[in-house]
Structure formats: C-alpha cells, structure tokens
C-alpha cells in the first residue's frame, strides 16, 4: 500500500488530472492540481470521502463506477465521459476522457482506485455540434428522398432547400475545419472521402486533393483496407465504434513519431435509416498515454522497493477505527491474510507484555500533534499469534490530523529487526563480560605494576652502570681507533718520507733495523747486526763525528738527543748515500743509557741539489757581476715602474741621462716626460702605453729611440729604451722594467753616414739625370726626324745610364746594410692605405704592364710604414723587371689567422727550384742567360727579408719556371 506521501508524489508527477482514492468510501488519498482544477475544488478535499468532496456527482454514476473498479478490479476507460460539476456555484456540463484503475497491494488486493481525467469538453462539444449538423443533413436528405417525386413540382422548395443545404454545408465545413480534433466523413458505399479537416488529412499523411477520392487511391493498401473494414463494420452494425490508444505513426517535423489516438467511427444515416456514410473523429492522446505509462512504471517501482526492504505497511483509519495491514505486517504479527484486523485485538494483543504499555503510549503520543507532530518511531517485541515466537519490530509512522488537530489517519511501516536486536544484545552482553574481565585484569595489572616498579628501580641502576661502562668502552674504542689512525699515518708518513728505523740495544751492542734502513746502508742480510758492523759502512771522513754524536747522545747531559747528517758507502752496492739520522737515547734510573733508537732518511738528492744550488748561486753572482760591469761599461740606465702602486725607480745612470734629482724612488713619472724632446713626447707615451696594454702577441715589449731636450748644461741626447711590462695572470700590468742607453754618438755617427750616403747618391745621380734627360731629348729628336741610327744609340746610352743609376742605388743599399742594423720605427697604420698609395704610384709610373690591385679590407698593423712600402715597391719593381711587357701583375693583401699576407704575382720567367731557398740571401743572384740583362747586386730582397723579420713577420716566394713567381710577406695584424 502506498504511503500518502508516495501517493501525492505519484499524482503530482502526472501531466493530466489525477487522484488516488482508497477504501470502499473512496477517500481522497492524493489529488494533483490539474484534477483540483477540473473539480473546481481546493486542496483541503484531501482525506475526504469522494461524495463529501464532490457532492454534485452523487447521481452521475461515478461512485458506482468506482465501486465496480474497487470490488471487481476491472478498469474503466470512458472517452467523452460527461460530468456535471459545480463551477463558480453553477452546475456546468463538462466532458472528460476518464480512466479508472484499481490500486493493488503487494498481495494483489485492491485497496484503492486511481482516476485520471482529461478535459475534452471543447472537443466533445464540437463533435456534438457536428453530429447535430449531420442529423440536420440527414433530415434534409430524408425529406429530399421522401418527397422525390414532389421535387420536380416543387422546384422553388427544392431551390430553397438547396440554398439551405449549401449554407449548412458551408457551416459544416467551417465547423469541421475549426474543430480541435481530426474529423472527416467517408462515403460508406464508394469509400470516397466526402470531407476531412486538415488534422485528419495530416493524420493520414495526405493533402487536400485527397478529398473526393476513394480511400484505396490515397492511402496505403494496409490503411485503406483497415479503414474500409471499420466503415463496413459501422455500416453493417449501425452503431459507433470506439478505438482507444490506437498507435499511429505520423510524420512530424520531417521525422516519424509514434502517436496514440482515440477514434470514434459514427454512422450517418439517410432518411431511411440506412447508413450512407461514416464520420471519423480522432483525438490524439499521446501525452495521456505516456503519462499512464509513467504511472504504471512508478507503481511497479514502488512495489519492488517495498518487496526489497521487507517492510510491512499499516494504515489505521483513526476515526472509524479501521486498521489495514499488508501481507508482511500480518506475517510479523502471525495473523491470517484474510482475517479482519482490529487495533486492540491484533495490534495491542500482539505486542509483548513487557513492551505493550510503552508501545501503546508511543501511539498515543503520535496522536498528540503538539507533542510529536504525528511522528511515530518505536521498537517493540511482537508475540507471533500463530506460534508464539517473539520477534523485534521497528515501526515508523505518521499521523495525519484534521484542522482541529484530531488524528484522522495513522499510516506507517514495520520492519522485523530481530536479527539486529539479537546481535546488539549479544554485543551488550559481551561488553558486560568484557567489563568484568577488564576489572579483573585491572587488579592483576596493579599488582604487576608494583612488581614492575621494583624491577624498574633495579633496572635504572643497571642502566646507569651500563651507560657508564658503555661510555668507558666507547672512549677506549675511540682512543684505540685514534691510535690506529696515528700509527697508520706514521706508517704512511714514514713510507712517504722514505724513512727507515733503527734501534741500538746498548746492553748487547746490537743494532736492529728495518728493511728501508738496511737499504740505506746497501745491506740486505740480517735484521740484527753488531754496532761495529754498521760503523763499517760509514764514509771514513764522517765516521769520527758520527761517533762523537753517538757518544754525546748517550751522555745523560744531552737528554739523549741525536741529529746528524753523514755519508754511507753501500755494504753491497758501494753506493755513496747521504743520510739524515734522528734518534733518542733512553736512560735508566741510574742514568745509564739502555736503549738508543731513531730513524734514518736518504737525503742524497737534496744534498746534491743543494750543491748544485750553491754552484748556481755562484754562477748567478758571477753573472750579476758581469752584468754590473757590462752596465757600467755600456753606461746603461735602469728603470723599474711599480704600475700597481705608482712608484717609479730610476737608477743613478738613468737619473744622470735624464738630469733627474738624486733620489731612489719617485711618485710621479711626469718628470721623465718633461725632459723629452717635445716632438717625441707623444710617441714615447704611446709606445709605453702599448707595452702596458696586455697583448699576448707583443708580450709587453718596448723598444724606442727618442730625444732628450738640451739644457743649459747638456746638449740634446738620443737614447734607446728597451723594456718589458710584466702582467698578472689576469692580464693586469704589474711592473714596467727596462734600460736606456745613450745613443747620441751612435745617432750622430749614423746621421753623418746617412748624410754622406745622401750626398754621394745625390752627387752621383745629378749628372746622370742631366745625361739621361739629354739622351731622351736626342731620342725624341731622332724619332721626330726618323733618324734610326741616332735613336738606337740614344736608347743604348739611356740603358747604360739606367744601369749606372741602379748600381749607385745598389752601392748605397750595401753601404746602409753594411754599416749596421736597419732601424724600425713602428706606428699604427692601415695596410689598405699602404696598398692604395702603391697603386696610385704605379698607375702613374708603370705603363709597360697591367697591374691589378685587389680590394683590401681595413687591416690595422703596427709597423714602419716606409719600410713596409719599400718592400712592396721592391716586389712590384722586381715583377716589372723580370716579366715580359704587357703581362699582368696581381697585388693582394688578405688577412688570415691574424696575419696580413701581401702578395705580388707576376707572369714572368720564374725562378729555378734550386735557387728558391736563396733568393733572399745577401748578394745572391740567380744565374742564367736571361739574368744577364738585369741589373742589381742581390741586395734588394735581402733588405726586404731584414725589414719583414724585424717586424716579426715572414717572407717567401713560390715560383714555377716559365710561368711566373709570387713574392709574399706576412706581418701581424693588431686588434
């Protein structure tokens, strides 16, 4: 049986009017808002009897119909059921699609009725109107047929009738079309569609053109046959046919949908009472049908839930004192399924005597709305009326009250909880037992505790002792380990130091020594030897003072100390070794030594190194003396700049050269720059700066010649300064040291030489210049006069002049080289500029060959520009000189691996492989017929090599005989 709550939930879930009635009086158990709207009643009708709630239906057959359902279990479906209901105080006729179904408990017994209702008043009214029209039509028809013969004579009447017909037909069509249901009329003879509204056409899935056509033509054969049969049945039976919940597939929104319709097939008769056509009215009940299916599903679910939970249901009509128990409840109380139940006789009596009063009081409390709100929740024992067995029950219920707070109904459930209660009781019993045991244990525990405390006290004492012992043990272990470590270290140290040990037993005059010590004496035999034997292996020269040292150590006054170095001669290998021996003598109480032991170490290598060092120091001293004498002889001045602390040291000679005050150190180096010739100050500053700038390639070197200005007391001086900057590992300049040499005389001499060479050169060349000029004039004149002879002579004379000029240049070169070194004056410049200068020079002067200068990138170098240009010009001139007229000479300068390589490539005669290694040698000239016409002393390329090597560069040549040569040089590129 459903609880009131379940009933209400159930009806509320339905989209149509629904109500649940229980009992023979059809008490309203639950009713949804849609049904209340149909009844025009408020929710307070719930709990009322049907006829009390809706008294106006008393004589309308509904009560009887429900009685029938309640008693017979037969379902009733009543489409277009008519009911007269009070709406706003007036009785109104309404039509409903009604359904009445019995409500059964789990045992299948009926305990109520479910009623659903759909208001179809509008539809029915339309249908009735249609029927009326039809009836009118039939009457007219009858009239027409009855007075068939009168027709011709009564034309006017006919016409009138016809008009009436037309109008009626139009009205009928209008009504038909506006009907809320599908309506149509089929000719019962021809089975043609007389008329059909849109809804029916839609239901059939045809359009309006189907009207007037036979069913067989517009519908499928199945549909057509079905419909024809139905029409035949109606025609033959002469009464309406009803079809409820007829399943129909209909196309909606482009998809097929399952729909349900209630159909009415109604006969339409002519005047003779013959069925001439059949009216079809179809009302879609898909929603209702779905709702009904939902109700059925809920009912089934509920039943299943009840079954699964094994709970019984009770429902007490408090007012009438009628108690309903379902099968399960009856079983719990041991009551027959068919027996009528009484509250006192079955329930109160069925309770266990011990629980009866309490349980009945719980019911009384539940009846008190104020006290409990109608809630009932109790556990009690039931004595099975059939077999006397006792079972525990948990009952939960709810009392429903009327507006005066009087209990009306009391419904709820009961569950057999005997198993759970027994388990609980067992648990409680076991807990009591446990408690007793616990108490016993507690007593024993206390006793044990006392004993334990005694033990604990004893234990603590023992633990303290134990701890003490452990700490002593640990200390000992640590000490032992420390000793082991020390011993090990000592062993390692001795091994690492290559030390041997010895021990002299003074009493027995025996020496015991270890393997290493024996090695040191070149001895490999006994571990113990007489002391005298040991003495034999000592160097004779050292024996006396070794003896002396031993005697001293054995004297108590020495405190036993022994530390001596001496030589040994290996007993077996005769090798000389230097030994360092340390030892200590031990004395007894009487002051007599009884033991003397120590170590011996081989110090031969150190001794030899020391000897070497002594020798080296002597040599250094000697060198220093030599250096001093050299310095004095060369009159070198020394400088030493502490670049970190800015302290400048210049020696006496330096100060003399620079005319500086007589002091060892200076805090400022500007005094030196003030002494310089103004034209040289910047150059010297730059050279010093370059040296002090960290550069691995230059290595901080410094080599420069400059002038010191004349003073009142001294003339202008030339000095050469050579130095070096020392850097830290990180590249920080630390010291700048070097020497200066007064080269004034050397410079003057050099100048005199240069002047002399210059004068010689000039004076020798001047007449040649004139001679050469006149010869050219002669040549031009001869050419002009076409005087071949004079032209030839002039040309030959001119060649001789050229030869003479070259010879003079050669002699001058020899003179310059022969006299001394070439001075290099380094300055930063761009190799590209140098090549460009050479290009403009040769463009104006070389007409015999094509000289191609390849583009040169910016290439900074630190070099003597004039000297490097001299080398390049020399290469180019050689190329012109040794290659045929009209050939090409290529000049390029390319940087690779921080070196710029300058190449001059010609297409000349080339150089034989055997000569290649010597072309840069002084006075070397390549032999050969072709060389006879060329001039020179073999000094030009030698000069080139000197210049390049002084720049820290390389020079070379690649050549293939008959194809040409490539002369090249390389110098470092600066950053």
């Amino acid at each position: 049986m459903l609880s009131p709550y379940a009933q209400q939930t159930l009806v509320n879930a339905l989209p149509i009017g629904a109500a649940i009635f229980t009992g023979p009086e059809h008490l309203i158990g639950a009713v949804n808002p849609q049904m209340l709207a149909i009844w025009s009643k408020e929710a307070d009708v719930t709990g009322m009897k049907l006829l009390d709630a809706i008294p106006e239906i008393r004589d309308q057959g509904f009560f009887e119909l429900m009685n029938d359902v309640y008693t017979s279990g037969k379902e009733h479906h009543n489409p277009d059921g008519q009911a007269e209901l009070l709406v706003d105080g007036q009785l109104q006729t309404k039509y409903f699609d009604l359904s009445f179904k019995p409500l059964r408990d789990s045992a299948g017994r009926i305990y109520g009725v479910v009623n659903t209702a759909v208001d179809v008043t509008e539809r029915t009214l339309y249908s009735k109107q249609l029927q009326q029209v039809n009836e009118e039509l039939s009457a007219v028809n009858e009239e027409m047929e009855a007075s068939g013969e009168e027709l011709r004579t009564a034309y006017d009447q006919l016409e009138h009738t016809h008009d009436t017909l037309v109008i009626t037909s139009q009205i009928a069509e209008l009504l038909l079309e506006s009907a809320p249901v599908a309506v149509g009329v089929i000719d019962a003879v021809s089975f043609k569609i007389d008329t059909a509204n849109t809804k029916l056409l839609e239901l059939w899935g045809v359009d309006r053109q189907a009207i007037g056509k036979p069913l067989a033509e517009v519908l499928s054969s199945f549909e057509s046959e079905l419909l024809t049969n139905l029409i035949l049945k109606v025609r033959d039976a002469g009464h309406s046919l009803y079809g409820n919940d007829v399943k129909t597939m209909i196309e909606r929104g482009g998809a097929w949908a399952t729909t349900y319709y209630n159909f009415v097939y109604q006969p339409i008769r002519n005047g003779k009472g013959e069925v001439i056509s059949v009216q079809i009215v179809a009302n879609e009940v898909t929603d209702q049908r779905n709702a009904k299916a939902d109700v059925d599903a809920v009912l089934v679910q509920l039943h299943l839930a009840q079954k699964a939970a094994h709970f019984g249901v009770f429902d007490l009509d408090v007012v009438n004192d009628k108690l309903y128990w379902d099968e399960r409840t009856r079983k719990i109380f041991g009551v027959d399924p068919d027996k009528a139940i009484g509250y006192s006789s079955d329930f109160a009596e069925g309770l266990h005597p011990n629980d009866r009063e309490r349980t009945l009081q719980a019911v009384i409390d539940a009846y008190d709305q104020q006290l409990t709100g109608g809630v009932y929740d109790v556990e009690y024992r039931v004595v099975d009326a059939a077999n006397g067995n006792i079972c525990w029950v948990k009952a939960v219920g709810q009392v429903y009250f009327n507006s005066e707070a009087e209990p009306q109904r009391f419904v709820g459930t009961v569950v057999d909880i005997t198993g759970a209660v027994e388990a609980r009781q067992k648990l409680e019993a076991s807990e009591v037992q446990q408690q007793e045991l616990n108490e016993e244990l507690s007593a024993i525990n206390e006793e044990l505790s006392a004993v334990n405390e005694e033990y604990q006290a004893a234990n603590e004492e023992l633990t303290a002792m134990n701890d003490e012992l452990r700490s002593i043990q640990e200390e000992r272990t640590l000490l032992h380990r420390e000793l082991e470590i020390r011993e090990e270290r000592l062993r390692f140290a001795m091994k690492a130091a290559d030390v041997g040990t010895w021990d002299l037993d003074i009493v027995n005059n025996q020496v015991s020594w270890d393997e290493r010590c024996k090695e040191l004496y070149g001895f490999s035999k006994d571990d113990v030897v007489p002391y005298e034997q040991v003495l034999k292996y000592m160097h004779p020269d050292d024996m006396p003072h070794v003896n002396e040292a031993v005697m001293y150590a054995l004297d108590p006054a020495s405190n036993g100390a022994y530390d001596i170095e001496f030589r040994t001669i290996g007993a077996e290998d005769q090798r000389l070794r230097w030994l360092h021996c340390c030892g200590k003598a031990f004395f007894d109480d009487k002051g007599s030594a009884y033991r003397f032991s120590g170590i011996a170490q081989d110090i031969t290598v150190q001794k030899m190194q020391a000897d070497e060092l002594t020798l080296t120091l002597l040599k250094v001293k000697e060198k220093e003396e030599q250096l001093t004498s050299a310095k004095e002889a060369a009159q070198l001045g020394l400088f030493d700049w502490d670049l970190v602390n800015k302290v400048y040291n210049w020696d006496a000679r330096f100060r003399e050269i620079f005319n500086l005050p007589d002091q060892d150190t200076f805090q400022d180096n500007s005094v030196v720059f003030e002494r310089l010739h103004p034209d040289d100050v910047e150059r010297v500053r730059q050279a010093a700066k370059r040296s002090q700038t960290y550069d691995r390639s230059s290595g901080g070197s410094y080599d420069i010649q400059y002038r010191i200005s004349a003073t009142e007391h001294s003339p202008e001086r030339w000095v050469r300064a050579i130095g070096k900057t020392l850097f830290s590992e990180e590249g920080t300049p630390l010291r700048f040291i070097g020497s200066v040499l007064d080269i004034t005389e050397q410079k003057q001499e050099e100048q005199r030489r240069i002047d002399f060479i210059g004068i010689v050169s000039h004076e020798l060349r001047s007449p040649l210049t004139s001679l050469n000029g006149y010869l050219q004039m002669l040549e031009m004149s001869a050419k002009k006069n076409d005087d071949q002879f004079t032209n030839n002579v002039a040309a030959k004379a001119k060649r001789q002049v050229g030869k003479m000029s070259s010879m003079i240049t050669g002699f001058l070169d020899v003179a310059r080289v022969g006299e001394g070194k070439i001075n290099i004056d380094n300055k930063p410049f761009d190799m590209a500029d140098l090549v460009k200068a050479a290009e403009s020079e040769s463009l104006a002067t070389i007409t015999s060959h094509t000289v191609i200068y390849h583009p040169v990138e910016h290439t900074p170098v630190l070099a003597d520009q004039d000297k490097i240009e001299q080398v390049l010009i020399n290469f180019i001139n050689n190329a012109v000189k040794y290659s045929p007229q009209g050939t090409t000479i290529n000049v390029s300068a390319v940087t690779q691996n921080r070196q710029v390589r300058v190449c001059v490539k010609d297409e000349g005669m080339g150089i034989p492989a055997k000569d290649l290694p010597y072309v840069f040698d002084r006075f070397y000239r390549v032999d050969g017929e072709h060389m006879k016409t060329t001039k020179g002393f073999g000094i030009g390329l030698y000069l080139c090599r000197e210049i390049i090597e002084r720049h820290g560069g390389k020079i070379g040549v690649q050549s293939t005989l008959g194809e040409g040569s490539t002369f090249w040089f390389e110098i470092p590129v600066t950053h």
Partner: protein
Amino acid sequence: MRVPMSKVLVCDDDNDILDMTSMLLEFAGFQVITQINSNKVIDQAIAERPDVMLIDIWMPFPGDKLTRQIKQTPQLSRIPVVLFSAAINGKMIAKEAGADRFVEKPFDVENLAAIINSVIAA
C-alpha cells in the same frame, strides 16, 4: 679646337738640369717657365699662376721648405707641387713636406709627364 697647354714652373739650382727638364717638358707638350733661384719661386708663381710646379729638393732654399710656404700662401695653396730629387730619402722628405708627388732623378720623361698630368687632373 686647340687645347690650351698646361703651364709648368720648374725650379732647380742646377742649371743643366733646369735646362734639360724644361726642354723635355716642352717636347712633351707643356708650357714651361723656369726659376733657378728658389727664393724667387713664390713671387714668380703668384705673378704667373702656373698649373703645376716641379721643384728640386736640395737647393739653397730647400724644396721641402718651399713647398710648405707654397701650401701656406693663399694664392698658391691649390697649385699642385711635384718635388724631384736625386737624394735617396727624397720620397720621405717630399711626403713630410706635403708635396703632391715625388719623382726620383734620373727620371723618364714619359713618367714625369704622366705624373704632372695626373696631379693637374686631380
């Protein structure tokens, strides 16, 4: 149309060379004016406005000093100067003095003419 000849002022204290050089340059198609006294070159140049000056180095008033003066004289500073000498360091002296070019003696007239033309054109 006749192209006007470039005017070259040649100065050398060696009369032979002065003579020979002027003759050669005339042969080569230049208009030549000469000066044996290096002290008078400035005045003459101002008066005659040559297109280029060819000056020896070793003279009583040396060619390098004369070049510096020319370069500092507003009326003459734009006239190119070519120094020529038999001295071995002539090229270096010419460069330091700011001369436009240097020609070594003995010279080849074709080279000399080419250099003179190139400095006039520059």
